[in-house]
C-alpha cells in the first residue's frame, strides 16, 4: 500500500475531506508554538524557564481548541454511523 493510498483511506475514514481548512489554522499556530517550546527547551539558556512557561500558557487555549475539534469530529463520525 502506497503512502498516498494510506492517506486517502485515512482521510475517507475520518471524513477529513469535509473539514474546512479554516479549522486547521489554530492547529498550525499550536504546532509552531510547541516546536518553538521544544527548541527553547533543547537549547536552554538564561530565561528558558520563563519562555517555556509563557509558551505553555499560550498553547493551552489552542490545545483546548484542538480537543474541541477532535470531539466534534468523533461526534460527527460516530453520530453518522
Amino acid at each position, binding site marked *: 500500500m502506497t503512502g498516498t493510498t494510506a492517506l486517502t483511506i485515512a482521510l475517507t475514514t475520518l471524513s477529513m475531506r469535509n473539514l474546512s481548512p479554516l479549522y486547521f489554522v489554530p492547529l498550525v*499556530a499550536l504546532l509552531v508554538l510547541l516546536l518553538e517550546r521544544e527548541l527553547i527547551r533543547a537549547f536552554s539558556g538564561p*530565561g528558558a524557564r520563563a*519562555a517555556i512557561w*509563557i509558551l505553555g500558557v499560550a498553547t493551552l487555549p489552542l490545545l*483546548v*481548541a484542538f480537543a*474541541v475539534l477532535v470531539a466534534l469530529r468523533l461526534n460527527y463520525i460516530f453520530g453518522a454511523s
Partner: protein
Amino acid sequence: MVMYLQPPRSGVLAGLARPTFVFLAALIAAEAVVRIRGPFAGAACYALGFVVLVNVTFLAYRRFDGEGSRWRLAAVAGVPFLDRLLVLSVPPFRWGAYEVSALWGLPLLATAIAIGRPPLVPRPARLLGQPVAAARFGQPRPGTSRILAVQVPITALCLGVIAAVSLPSDTARIEGGPLIAVAAVVFAFCVQEWLYRLVIQPVAAEVWGERIGMLTTSALVAFASIAALSELVPIGPGVVVPAVAVSLLLGVSTTHGIPLAVTILGRGLFTLCVVLASIIR
C-alpha cells in the same frame, strides 16, 4: 552650532505610543482581511499576530527580567488576537438542524483560568469580590454599590432590547433554536467578558491609569463582541451602538467596584436579547 533641546520623552505613555499604534493597526488590518479576503485569510492573520505577540511577551519578560508591566501588556495584547482566531476557526456544533458557533467559549475559559492569576494579574478579582481596578478609582458606599449592582444588569437588558428591536427585519430566523444552543452562545459571550475584565482591564489600568485602562478594555470588548455577534446575526448601527454602550457601561461599573459577576450578568442579558430576537422574529 545651534542645539535644540528636546524635552525628554519620559513617561510610560510616550514609550508605549508606537507599540500601541502598531497593535491597533495590526488588529484593524486583520479584521479588514477577514471582511475582504474571507475568514481563512483573516484567521491566518490573527494566528500570526498571536504567535508574534507571544514571542514579544517572552522577549519583554527577558529584557525587563520579569519586572514592570510591559511584558504583562504584551501578554494581554495577545488576547484579542487569540479571541478572534478562536471565534473564526473553532467549528460550530450541530444540535439537530441547528448549527451554532459558540464552542470558542471553552478555549477562552481555559485562557482566563490560566492567565487570570499571578504573575500576570497580581491580584485577580473574584467573581463576587470587588475588582482591583476600583481600589483607587473611588469606592462607592455599600448602599450605592447595591443600587448600581441592580441598575447595571437592568440597563444592559434595556440596551439588549434596543439592539434586538433594531435587528434588520430580513434577519434569517434561527429555525428551532433549542435552549442549549442559546445557552451556549450566552455562555461564550459571558466568558469573553470575564476574560477581558479579569485580565486586560487590571493590566491596562496599571499602565495607563484606571480611566484609560477602562476605556481601552471597553473598546476591545466592544470590538470582540461585535465581531463575534456578526457570526450570528447581521450587524447594523442599531446593534453596534447598544453593543458599544453596554461595553462602556460594564467597564464603568467594573471601575466603580461592582463585582465581576454582575458585569458578566449584564453581558449575558444583552446577548440573550440579541440571540432570542433572531429566534423569535
